[in-house]
């Protein structure tokens, strides 16, 4: 690669290795975010490192395509999710199934069926103190990739629905339905990991 624009020439001093590095350091700020998401996607530290390296390599090579002042975090996540999807395509497909309750209130209904005084409890008592906390990462990593990506981008990385739609190249409606399905499935998994049996559904059925 031979950088030869006027700006670079101006910044370059004899023997200096700095050369327009400032133009890339903004991307380093998002390293922890990319890595923790890569870890959830690949499930393995060594694969997560590979994915992040590949992402930064591409980001560096295509850095001229990035418009300064726009959302560099979204840009990096666009690259990373594309790299990850390409990697998946190169592997034999894994059959991923989703075990999804029929509505968004799964844990609430389960607790209700256990006869707990829900109105006297805070969310922290309902969730954390009842042993759901430790299994969150495992539950997330077991979601099928399309849902896992959306839950990570919205819940962990705090992107808006619109940004997620742009990052993944899908419609906002698809973002929402994947998010809802992912969260429902997450609730059910967390409930099961906490060692409880699902209580028979009183209405609507659908709980196996």
């Amino acid at each position, binding site marked *: 690669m031979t950088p030869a624009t006027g700006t670079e020439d101006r910044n370059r001093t004899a023997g200096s290795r700095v050369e327009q590095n400032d133009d890339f350091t903004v991307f380093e700020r998002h390293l922890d975010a990319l890595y923790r998401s890569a870890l959830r996607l690949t499930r393995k530290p060594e694969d997560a490192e590979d994915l*992040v390296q590949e992402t930064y390599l591409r980001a560096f090579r295509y850095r001229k395509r990035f418009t300064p002042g726009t959302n560099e975090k979204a840009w990096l996540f666009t690259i990373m999710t594309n790299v990850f999807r390409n990697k998946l395509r190169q592997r034999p497909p894994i059959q991923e199934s989703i075990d999804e309750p029929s509505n968004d*209130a799964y844990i609430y209904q389960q607790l209700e069926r256990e006869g707990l005084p829900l109105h006297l409890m805070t969310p922290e008592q309902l969730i954390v103190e009842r042993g759901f906390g430790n299994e969150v990462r495992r539950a997330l990593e077991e979601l099928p990739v399309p849902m896992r990506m959306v839950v990570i981008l919205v819940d962990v990385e705090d992107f808006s629905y619109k940004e997620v739609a742009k990052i993944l190249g899908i419609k906002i409606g698809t973002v929402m339905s994947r998010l809802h399905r992912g969260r429902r499935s*997450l609730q059910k998994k967390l409930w099961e990991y906490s060692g409880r049996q699902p209580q028979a559904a009183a209405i609507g059925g659908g709980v196996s």
Partner: protein
Amino acid sequence: MNCNECGDQLNAFVDRELTAGELGEVQRHLDDCPPCLQIFELQAGLKRLVRKECCQDEAPARLRAWVRKLPTEERRV
């Protein structure tokens, strides 16, 4: 707004994706409906929990060093 309508909007409410008008409607329903409020608090609590658990992971120092050196290494190629 009834409980079903509230349930349909709850994800977007938790994610702060509603317009001011929609938000007000959900808020009014939650103020009057303890079960929906509990479901909302559980959803919001789960979201916080997912975020908290996942944010515990930090990039290894080796990877950070690699990223820092990338511009100089790449320009040498």
